[in-house]
């Protein structure tokens, strides 16, 4: 079998499995989870084979295109269902199927007592299929199908326990926020078609030099809007915290490692658009910087361990978006951080899941404490992820995040100083809130309730955590060894001829400064959270209060969008009944009123009819007589 055929199989296998498990229903309850896991692992194997084969080929022959079938052919719009496997997509394929498989394995144990486990695995496989389609599609329209597919899977998984109304609402909120982003993607595709007559990545790339700068800016802005929706970036960030309603493995896979990074993928994939418009790049940077600070600040005030991690995810993706707005070298670093983040954040989420598993699904960190004694493996793997996200050398985050900070600083002009400082500040806050999480959870005094008996999770759960922890240690080093990833991605993102910016600060000095800031954050958190009260303190500064309320993002949406929206809906409904339909009914009423009046003439007396006839006759005669004259 040649390699091209296998690409389609990557998507077909999990899609088939998802369909099968959903269609068979209860009949598949006993083996569904095993089957889905095997399917997921087999996609990883295929991905690995593809990677090895691609590695062997020369740099310029690495990209493969697989035309599956004719999809939408109307007039000038000729879109095929076609897959593109190149250096960028294979990186994602490995991340998705690799982390995905680990999380499948983890979920076998995690979801053991849920009688809907089969359905859960079907959704997971559906997600894998959609996510692979997203990164493998060779045109924006193909990508769009995967884009909505992951949105659907995310909706289903967030609302997996939708018997709780709040969870069902969280699922809907995520879908709607994503739909706002989808408007951006739709419009981007329309702009691309109107401008270039093509919606494939190649077609758009080829047309960029001929397009007006306004068109490119529009295209870039719409792609950015799409990315903000999917990646929970400012201003569409509010859904991610609520999305933690889903089972924890879902949060690890979809809302940390893969789906939420799709926005970064979209920007990096569209590098030719952003390279051609500096304003669009600036917008990307602005969104990235705002979100990385926004997420970090929210993260400092969350007592729910999953929501704290979600805020952290938002912030880390902010780093990636920031990097992808910094030009060619930034793309590679964005992807690097995306991959390392995939390891350490998924690992930490699984750790959080493990903690919840051991404490009767408790998520309030104020009810944890001293868990390292009872859950040593979880504590160690979580700790490794923690070191990675802090950017402590030689852990993964050091290689990826420090590069982003450095690149930000090296941007020319005062902008460079501002975004560099922002990124540095973000690193410090990250250190603070992550230390807070780890101190409140694993250190200090035990604060759990009496009926809770913390225990270590089974092997099926800690082995994936351990593997991800190994990734958290080594991924950064491996990916940047001799510029491995940067060179690998060079043909896709043009990252070879770059580094025209001089270093503003020497790299070693910057690393030291960064570590200093991080250390400060760590120490501050350790001092502050030596003692953890059972309930959150009431008397806090206005900033803490704002952070607890997610910086009023929901209140803002409520006041600006939902309330007027609701009012508008009711108004439309009322206007329709009273004005539009009222006009129609008014005509009807008028006619019937008129006939009601006229009906009185029909009194049933023959002589009155005769009188009317006679009068009519007279008038007729009179008329004839008058005309004659």
């Amino acid at each position, binding site marked *: 079998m040649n390699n091209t055929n296998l690409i389609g199989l990557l998507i077909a296998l999990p899609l088939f499995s998802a369909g099968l498990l959903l269609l068979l229903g209860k009949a598949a309850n006993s083996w569904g989870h095993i089957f889905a896991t095997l399917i997921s692992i087999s996609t990883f194997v295929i991905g690995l084979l593809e990677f090895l084969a691609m590695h062997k080929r020369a740099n310029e022959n690495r990209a493969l295109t697989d035309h599956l079938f004719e999809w939408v052919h109307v007039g000038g719009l000729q879109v095929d269902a076609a897959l593109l496997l190149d250096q960028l997509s294979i990186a994602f394929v490995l991340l998705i199927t690799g982390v995905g498989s680990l999380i499948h394995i983890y979920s076998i144990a995690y979801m053991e007592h849920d009688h809907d486990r089969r359905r859960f695995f079907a959704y997971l496989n559906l997600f894998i299929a959609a996510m692979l389609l997203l990164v493998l599609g060779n045109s924006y329209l193909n990508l769009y199908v995967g884009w909505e597919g992951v949105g659907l899977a995310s909706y289903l998984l967030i609302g997996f326990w939708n018997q709780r109304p709040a969870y069902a609402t969280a699922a809907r909120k995520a879908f709607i926020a994503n739909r706002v982003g989808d408007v951006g993607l739709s419009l981007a595709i329309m702009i691309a078609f109107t401008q270039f007559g093509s919606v494939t990545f190649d077609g758009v790339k080829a047309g960029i030099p001929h397009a007006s700068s306004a068109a490119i800016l529009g295209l870039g802005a719409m792609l950015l809007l799409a990315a903000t929706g999917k990646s929970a970036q400012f201003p569409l960030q509010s859904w991610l915290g609520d999305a933690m309603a889903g089972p924890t493995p879902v949060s690890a896979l979809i809302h940390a490692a893969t789906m939420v990074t799709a926005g970064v993928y979209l920007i990096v994939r569209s590098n030719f658009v952003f390279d051609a418009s500096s304003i669009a790049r600036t917008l990307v940077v602005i969104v990235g910087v705002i979100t990385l600070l926004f997420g970090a600040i929210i993260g400092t005030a969350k007592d729910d361990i999953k929501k704290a991690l979600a805020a952290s995810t938002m912030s880390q993706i902010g780093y990636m978006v920031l990097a992808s707005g910094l030009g060619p070298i930034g793309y590679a670093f964005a992807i690097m951080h995306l991959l390392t983040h995939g390891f350490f954040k998924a690992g930490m989420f699984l750790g959080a899941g493990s903690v919840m598993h051991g404490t009767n699904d408790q998520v309030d960190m104020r009810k944890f404490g001293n868990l390292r004694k009872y859950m040593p493996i979880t504590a160690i793997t979580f700790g490794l992820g923690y070191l990675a996200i802090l950017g402590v050398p030689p852990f993964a985050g050091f290689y990826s995040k420090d590069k982003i900070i450095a690149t930000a600083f090296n941007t020319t002009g005062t902008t460079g100083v501002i975004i560099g400082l922002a990124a540095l500040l973000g690193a410090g806050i990250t250190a603070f809130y992550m230390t807070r999480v780890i101190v409140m959870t694993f250190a200090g005094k035990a604060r759990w309730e009496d009926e809770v008996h913390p225990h270590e999770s089974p092997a099926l759960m800690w082995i994936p955590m351990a593997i991800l922890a190994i990734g958290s240690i080594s991924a950064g080093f491996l990916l940047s060894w001799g510029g491995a990833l940067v060179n690998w991605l060079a043909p896709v993102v043009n990252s070879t001829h770059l580094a025209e910016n001089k270093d503003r600060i020497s790299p070693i000095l910057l690393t030291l400064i960064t570590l200093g800031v991080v250390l400060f954050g760590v120490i501050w958190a350790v001092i502050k959270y030596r003692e953890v009260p059972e309930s959150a303190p009431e008397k806090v500064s206005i900033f803490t209060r704002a952070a607890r309320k997610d910086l009023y993002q929901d209140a803002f949406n409520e006041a600006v969008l939902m309330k007027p929206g609701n009012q508008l809906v009711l108004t439309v409904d009322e206007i329709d009944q009273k004005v539009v339909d009222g006009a129609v009914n008014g005509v009807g009423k008028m006619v019937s009123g008129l006939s009601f009046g006229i009906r009185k003439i029909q009194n049933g*007396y023959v002589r009155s009819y005769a009188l009317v006839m006679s009068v009519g006759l007279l008038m007729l005669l009179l008329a004839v007589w008058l005309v004659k004259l």
Partner: protein
Amino acid sequence: MDISNYLYLSAILFTIGIAGVLIRRNAIIVFMSIELMLNAANLAFVTFSRTNGGLDGQVASFFTMVIAACEVVVGLAIIVTIYRTRRSASVDDASLLKR
């Protein structure tokens, strides 16, 4: 003799007929009034036939008489039936179709 006198007579008879139909409630009298109107028309027909020298008017008046006869047959039968069932020959009482 001046032809217009016949026509005046015809008009007067017709008007009396109309007045009878409009004013009286007794079905028999309404009926007679209608006969009067028909005969007024007959008179006009014959008059014109006489002046024009043709026979068309005479023929038309025969038609009218035949129709009048038919009308009497059907109409009187209806009136008698109504009288039998409702004990009244007033046209105003025969208003079942109104509702």
